């Protein structure tokens, strides 16, 4: 059982690597389907924003609520805005956004391409002399790569706003003082790596969803399986890659 799971995981990774390489080879060469990328940005962005925005706000609120008593115990509650800001911008914002988008978008892409595969729509594109990989995969992955930093920036802002509301309920902090503490506490090494890694998360979300959907077999059962596997694999890869990126960031910027 464990052996077959491990073998299936590494089988998926191998196939995903080949698929990713095909993406890299295709993305720089014409024809460029800019209209299709824009359509996916509109669709995926509007589909994800309400959920990630609400979650970001609530997580910011909870983070401040949870951290405040501990800092208060050590007489360090003045550092609460700085602590929330660094945790959110460096780690929580990018990872929470990525995991939610993985659940929302990666599964959606897997199901959409999967049903196109089983109803021969991908074959129909291929026999028309149109490269379905370019039209369906490259455009979706590019949209995810562009979208992820934008969504994360919004989630960070809403999370920090949620934290402000939480602090405001407990103490009498002004809007200006809170944001001044937040901005002063953040450095280049907090903001840029935090946002930069989201492009990699976007790539994982897009490529895993497309890979699962594009090679779906087994009819409607296969579509369901593609959708579920897309969420599981993309979430797992996001966590693993994040661990490596955190190590690299700490090593480079301290």
């Amino acid at each position, binding site marked *: 059982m464990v052996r077959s799971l491990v073998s299936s995981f590494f089988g998926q990774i191998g196939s995903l690597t080949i698929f990713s390489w095909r993406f890299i080879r295709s993305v720089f060469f014409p*024809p460029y389907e800019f209209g299709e990328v824009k359509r996916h940005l509109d669709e995926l962005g509007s589909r994800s924003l309400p959920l990630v925005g609400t979650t970001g706000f609530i997580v910011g609120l909870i983070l401040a609520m949870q951290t405040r008593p501990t800092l208060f115990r050590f007489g360090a509650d003045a550092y609460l805005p700085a602590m929330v800001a660094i945790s959110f911008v460096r780690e929580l914002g990018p990872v929470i956004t990525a995991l939610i988008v993985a659940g929302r978008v990666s599964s959606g892409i897997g199901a*959409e391409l999967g*049903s*196109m595969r089983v*109803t*021969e*729509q991908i*074959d*129909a*594109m*291929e*026999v*028309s*002399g*149109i*490269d379905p990989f370019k039209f369906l995969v490259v455009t979706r992955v590019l949209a995810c790569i562009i979208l992820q930093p934008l969504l994360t920036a919004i989630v960070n802002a809403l999370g920090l706003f949620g934290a402000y509301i939480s602090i405001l309920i407990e103490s009498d902090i002004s809007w200006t003082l809170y944001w001044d503490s937040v901005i002063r506490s953040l450095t280049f090494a907090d903001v840029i790596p935090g946002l930069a890694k989201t492009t990699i998360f976007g790539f994982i979300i897009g490529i895993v969803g497309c890979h699962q959907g594009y090679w779906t077999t087994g009819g409607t059962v296969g579509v369901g399986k593609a959708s579920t596997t897309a969420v599981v694999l993309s979430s797992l890869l996001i966590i693993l890659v994040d661990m490596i990126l955190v190590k690299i960031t700490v090593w480079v910027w301290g």
Partner: protein
Amino acid sequence: MGLIEVRNVSKSFNGLPVLEDVNLVVEEGTTVVILGKSGVGKSVLLKAIIGLIEPDAGSIRIDGHEVVGMKRKDLNALRRQMGYLFQGAALYDSMSVRENLIFPLERREQLTREELEERIIRQLEMVGLEDAIDKMPAELSGGMKKRIALARALIINPRIMLYDEPTTGLDPITAREISYLIKELQHRYQPTSIAVTHDMMCARIIADKVAVLHDGVVEHEGSLDELEKVDNEIVRSFFATE
């Protein structure tokens, strides 16, 4: 020499042979119907001809060009002269009927918006569905989907047309209508065609020549009149369904 030549083609899936040494020659401008029961590999043969499935052995030549092992770029160029009607219509369900028809056309020909619109309306009129132009595939019946798929396949004026079970899943009246529509469009566009089906009524309407596929091999070939005289149980079983 035929426009399409299939020589000694074999294909297995998971060790199970589906096609075994299939030979078929289709002359330019003719319509060949491949008759066979479900699961004998008719669709596999059609997909091998258009390069969607790679045969294990044999050769498929279209207009003298070898399709087996052909580079993707050359294959795409060849496919631009071909139309394919899928068994389930395979309309793009995120696109309206108009977008379904525009999609292959605008990627092959440099046309203005007005010219594209004119071609689409003309094509839809031909299949009797000009009112469905703004509908989504989910809003169409099975027969309407087949008509739109036919319009989409023929809008590029293909030199070769492949039909995969054109009447499957339709009621007998709609199946007859679709068969006559294919016949009319064949007459208008004059493509060289292969249709795979198990429907004798459809074969009678559209075929110039019939090939009976059984157990992975072409058992008999000829006109319907010739086949009717053949003393073979498999061949006779098709005529018995009429």
